[in-house]
């Protein structure tokens, strides 16, 4: 392998790795405030990118991405409010959401197909919403029984729900966002190495994101409050921190950064409705590589995995590309679950 090719692979690896790093940071943010791994993290990224792609046909690209980020952030908040929050008081918001889901289910099952178009939808909602309120009223008390196992399963279900809804809202094809500058043929040359200027965008924006998050967690009121939550929920509560709000914010932030990263990289690696789960597992590998909860190590981990993957393509067949990341994950899990940069003793104190 000559030097030029080496640097080309390196640049490719870095851009892909930056994406993984952002997903991993999203995992970490949510893990730190709630102690759960959000399997739907990868789908947040795809959702944001998909919205941005659709919007880009009618809006300038910057605003389109903004809309994508916004939608993903709102979606993150909804997911947290509806599925993750474990309050036992009656939540009208959750009831309505569950009701809408029930209505859609009734509609898809074709129970009201004998009614004319339009009216069947209304009928579905008429029956669905009471179902939502009924479930909320009757079975709310069982929510406290949720264990780690059920929360894992819940986020997986949310992930699948998200991707399948995306496949229906859009389609099952791969989409791309237009390049920010020029098109796929525009090439930036640096000596003998040449690459698309989009890669600079990806690296730049991801770097900005990481710096921004650092500032957010280190210096702002909310950032500090969220860090307090990650150390001890009860203590944070006693200090007057609204833990519940912090959890919602953590979902919003991690969904928003994922959406931004997804939009920036979309011109290079395309966006398809079902890419979320593989992204999630790779992001998780990266988070583990750096030690769960440690966002800066996650950046290093992401870049390492990206580069490893880029080079693996030159050795292994392309079809086995994903295997590299997952084997890495399995190896770390088996031999050093606390992560390469993590401390063993600290990880023993964690719940799982």
């Amino acid at each position, binding site marked *: 392998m000559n030097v030029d090719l080496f640097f080309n692979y390196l640049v490719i690896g870095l851009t892909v790795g930056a994406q993984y790093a952002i997903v991993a940071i999203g995992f970490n943010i949510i893990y730190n405030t709630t102690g759960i791994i959000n399997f739907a993290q990868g789908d947040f990224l795809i959702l944001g990118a998909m919205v941005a792609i659709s919007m880009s046909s009618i809006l300038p690209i910057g605003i389109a991405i903004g809309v994508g980020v916004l939608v993903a952030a709102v979606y993150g908040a909804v997911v947290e409010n509806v599925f993750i929050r474990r309050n036992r008081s009656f939540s009208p918001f959750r009831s309505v959401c569950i009701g809408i889901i029930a209505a859609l289910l009734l509609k898809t099952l074709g129970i009201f197909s004998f009614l004319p178009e339009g009216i069947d939808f209304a009928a579905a909602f008429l029956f669905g919403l009471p179902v939502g309120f009924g479930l909320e009223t009757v079975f709310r008390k069982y929510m406290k029984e949720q264990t780690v196992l059920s929360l894992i399963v819940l986020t997986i279900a949310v992930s699948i729900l998200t991707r399948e*809804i995306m496949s229906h809202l859009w389609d099952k094809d791969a989409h791309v966002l237009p390049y920010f500058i020029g098109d796929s043929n525009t090439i930036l040359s640096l000596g003998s190495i040449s690459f698309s200027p989009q890669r600079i965008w990806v690296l730049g924006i991801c770097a900005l994101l990481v710096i921004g998050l650092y500032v957010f967690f280190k210096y702002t009121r909310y950032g500090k409050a969220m860090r307090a939550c990650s150390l001890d929920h009860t203590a944070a509560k006693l200090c007057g921190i609204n833990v519940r709000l912090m959890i919602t914010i953590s979902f919003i932030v991690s969904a928003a950064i994922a959406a931004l990263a997804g939009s920036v990289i979309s011109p290079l690696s395309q966006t398809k409705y079902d890419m979320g789960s593989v992204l999630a597992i790779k992001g998780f590998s990266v988070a583990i590589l750096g030690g769960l909860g440690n966002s800066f190590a996650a950046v290093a981990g992401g870049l390492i995995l990206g580069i490893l993957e880029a080079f693996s393509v030159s050795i292994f067949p392309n079809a086995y590309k994903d295997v590299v990341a997952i084997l890495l994950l399995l190896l770390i899990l088996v031999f050093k679950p606390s992560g390469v940069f993590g401390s063993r003793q600290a990880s023993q104190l964690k719940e799982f």
Partner: protein
Amino acid sequence: MNIRQYLPAAVFLGALVAVQLVISLTGAAFYFTQITMSFYYTIVVIGLCLLMGYAGQISLGHAGFFSIGAYMQAMLTTHDFSSIIHSSWDEVFKNVSQIFGTVEWYELIPEKIGAILGIPVKLFVGLGDIFGMFVPGTDGFGNGILSYAPSAALFISLLTAIGIACLIGLPVLRLKGHYLAMATLGFGIIISTIVFGTKLFGEADGISRVPAFHLVGPLSINGGMADRTVNYYIAGIILFIVLIVSMHIVASRVGRALRAIHGNEQAAGSLGINAMRYKLGVFVLSALFAAIAGVFLVHYNGSIGTSETSVLKSVRYVSIVAAGGMDSIWGVVAMSMGLNFVSLRGYFGSFDEIFFALILVVTMLFLPRGLFRKEYLEVVIKKTRRLTRRMVLKRKLEKKGIVFANKKKDDEK
């Protein structure tokens, strides 16, 4: 230990016969296909139920074990091994390289390593030949091929599944919670990727033309019209055996140890229960069940496609177990038969996966202990009883002339 334990099993057998009679009499024999397939999928779900519900260990990779069984069986019974059997040692390498599929990959293996890889394959196949494991058949183009007899392939497939389950389970079962979930998910994706990228397993096309599996006499597992009823019973009986085995395990010392591990692993350890051993045992058992289902289903369907290996399938099995009530085998069986049948009938169309995700969401959110539980029935009975009692009381009072005025209306007046 008493006879009452077998009551559900007897009900199951009764239902098996009753459903067959009803379907045959109404002439709706096309239902048999989906019911038979549901039987096989239920076997996977029962294994997962033992693992998740009883031992409390999550697995998001059971589609992987199902695929190992199905793909191994399909490959062994359709691949032409005659070239390996008859070839000289030099040629073995060429055949072995096919396992790795793509051409680039084949060229990457230095010839010596290829030859070394070829030795065990040649030995294994040669040994199989000595024991008469091969039967002649034809491929898609009518050429004569020599492949494993289904019964021989059955053993190899199941042993492979057991071996891989041990290999994966030993390191992975030390993990807990999210780590275990991710590790098993990763395993599932690896299996799916390997199947997709390997020529031997048909890459994206899967494997078709899997021959019938002749059991004894006229009994054979195949998807033919004529054998529909017979296959319905074969699948039902296999499921029945799996059920009885699971039921026995659950109600035994082993089942107790598993539930103890689920309850509190440390406390179980302090009682002398070797948690790792039992977790591995139940993991391998559930993998074996999944592989059994795969092996038989592939003969019944005659083909296998890559969709069977996807993560979505693994999640579907998990959602059925969750909805069925995690630690109630019969609830899980009922749920699995119902959902699989409805899904296989194509009732949900392209909303299939959404439906299973929704079931998972609703059960996990509101009924983490499953849809079928005795407690819920008791609650409902209690509430209705209270309600009826109140109504009766009210009527009695009304008869005596005491009327409850509606307070709000009075205020408005």
